[in-house]
């Protein structure tokens, strides 16, 4: 798979620290849980995204196919929390600049 343009995310040293949701301090989730769900759960229209951690692709969304998931990251990051995850966004012909999007 041609990776396209690689976009580094912010360093995620805090992956396993909780992210408190505003207004819901009783609910704590990890950043990886959030990324996993916003990218890997729900309706698939189209899109192409690869999240990689330390060069290992974890999530691929493209042509409505999910190849693998983020569980690996939970383990990998458990022993190497200083890795810098990256998001890879392959070039998508259908996406022009400044489009409307569901978020």
């Amino acid at each position, binding site marked *: 798979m041609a990776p396209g343009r690689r976009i580094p995310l*912010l360093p995620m040293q805090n992956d396993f620290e909780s992210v408190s949701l505003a207004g819901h301090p009783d609910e704590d989730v990890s950043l990886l849980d959030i990324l996993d769900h916003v990218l890997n759960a729900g309706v698939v229209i189209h899109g192409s995204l690869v999240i990689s951690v330390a060069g290992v692709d974890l999530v691929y969304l493209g042509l409505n196919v999910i190849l693998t998931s983020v569980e690996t990251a939970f383990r990998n990051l458990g022993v190497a929390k200083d890795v810098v995850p990256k998001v890879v966004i392959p070039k998508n012909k259908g996406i022009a600049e400044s489009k409307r999007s569901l978020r």
Partner: protein
Amino acid sequence: MNVLEHDELRLLWSEVEWPFEPSTFQRKAIEFHQTVHHLFKQTAVIPFRLLSIFDHQQSLADFVARHGSGFIADLERLQDVVQMECIIFFKSPGLPDLSSGSAYLRQKAGLQHLLDEFGGNLHTALSPVSAGLRIKEVKNGKRIYCQVQRGQEDLFRTTAQGVKMPDSLERRVSGPWPAAEFLSESVKMPEVAGQK
């Protein structure tokens, strides 16, 4: 945030610059999650995956006109449930027994048996507190998705944490999440004309 109304459906969407500033992706993902979760606290929601992009508002309207009834049916079906998850996996893969081929296979089978047995115990324990349950095999582990009645999340957590676990395994319990794993296929992966 914009709202598109179609019969009983309300579709929330927003406009983003594309391509967006890379350093903001993480923040955008959290904001997206917070928005979805804020609504989810109040009612059933069907989240679109982040970066579900429509060319223009009319294409979104057309999409809703075609698929709205399926969305409504799923929202009604999942109205009172949330999705809770339990992931089980090996703490460390450990060193493979390479003394012989059969020793390696025996070791691998033993680890798999351990995982299957614990997964089975979790399944048995969680079934009474779940309206629906799915197990997905993942690398070095299993991911268990459960439909749980709203208000029963703590019972689920207590039950999942209470199952005796072998030392070599770990578990992570998370939720509540929108019941995305229990959407019907036609809702989860609708065909969109001209957007394949």
